[in-house]
């Protein structure tokens, strides 16, 4: 029964480098013997380089997948920490909204007591805007 070989990301990158070196060696041979190689031979050598170049892409991609799998736990931990921190920022902003809404509420009370219909309407709009968190309307 065949055994699965588990590579590390660095081993995958090393294998890719080895394929790249092998491809360069064939290229070196092809260049050095360009005057004596037949068209067919040159084409065959080029094909071999292409196959090795494909293996380079494959193993460098595999290296990335292995790196990603290793970093997944850390990434998930950091995502959670960022979400918590963003909740705190939202809470602090909501305190500001409550104060803005409170300010507009005082204005509404004053406008109602003064029988100022326009002022009351503007203040009630600002209460709505403050609750929604629209600072430009609430100001």
């Amino acid at each position: 029964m065949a055994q699965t070989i588990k590579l590390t990301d660095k081993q995958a990158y090393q294998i890719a480098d080895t394929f790249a070196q092998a491809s360069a060696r064939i290229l070196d041979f092809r260049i050095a013997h360009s005057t004596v190689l037949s068209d067919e031979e040159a084409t065959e050598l080029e094909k071999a380089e292409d196959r090795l170049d494909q293996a380079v892409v494959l193993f460098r991609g595999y290296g990335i997948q292995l790196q990603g799998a290793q970093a997944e736990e850390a990434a998930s931990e950091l995502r959670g920490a960022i979400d918590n921190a963003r909740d705190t920022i939202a809470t602090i902003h909501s305190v500001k909204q409550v104060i803005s809404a409170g300010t507009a509420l005082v204005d509404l009370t004053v406008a109602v007591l003064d029988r100022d219909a326009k002022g009351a309407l503007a203040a009630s709009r600002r209460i709505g805007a403050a609750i929604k968190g629209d600072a430009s309307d609430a100001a």
Partner: protein
Amino acid sequence: MNRLSLAATLKPALLCGSLLLGGCANLAAVNSYAGDTQRLTAAFEPMLAGSSHSCTAKYLRKKAITTRDFDAVAAEKAAATLCGPIAADNKVMTELNGLLGQYADTLSALADEQLPSYKDEFGGLKDSLATVKRKGSADPLFDDGKLSAITGLASHLSRIATQRAQKAAIRDLLDHEAAVLAITNALNDYAQHNYRGWLKDEQRELALLREALDNAGKTEPLAANYLKTQLLAEEKQIAAREQAVEAFSTSIRELQQAHALIKQKYDQPDDKALAAQLKQFALAIAKLDQQAKAAF
């Protein structure tokens, strides 16, 4: 205690509300660390597209100089097939880099000194309360002193409550040092082993292609000289990119050391070792920015 002395007593606490919470937070240090981390993530991005570009450029260069009966259109198509999967593979790294960027953005937003400041909000409330009149009279219900005391105290209490949350959230983010270390190591490994691998492949082949051009120069000197000039320019560009990778790795090391120190000394506003490390980190990032501009 009269109203003025109440305000004077509150003032130092307002400047550093966290005195009640066990020391001041070094927000300037957190901001500096977060800002430089954001710049580091920006400098990493061109390396991702750089891998695909390097693969394509290497393939086309080799084919143009060494293939008998070279067909430019067919070569371009073959390069796209060969190098196309790199962009999809790189998505993992794009996500990790993006996550580090979000981490830095969130730290920066939390370290904003204006975040738990209610100057505008309480300014508005004070103005509104000033318009409230005594019942049956045109006199204001609150005089200036009362207004200042009420809004000052309310602002102080809000600030204490939210500064505690702000400080705790920054502390919590900084405590995830191992995760930051793992992600920055992954980015560094990509730069050193993947992207640099592509650059090395290009360098290796450039030396061989120069040899091919030397051979071709005997029969086609003009074309060979023209291509040699192009290869020289490309070689310089690749060398600049290698230096950018080195500058990136140096910046990663400085970031990791800065993180370890800021985590320990976050409550010490005047710590000299932390200030020196943040300066080192900032210098490394400035060099990285400069190198990245020359390279990409």
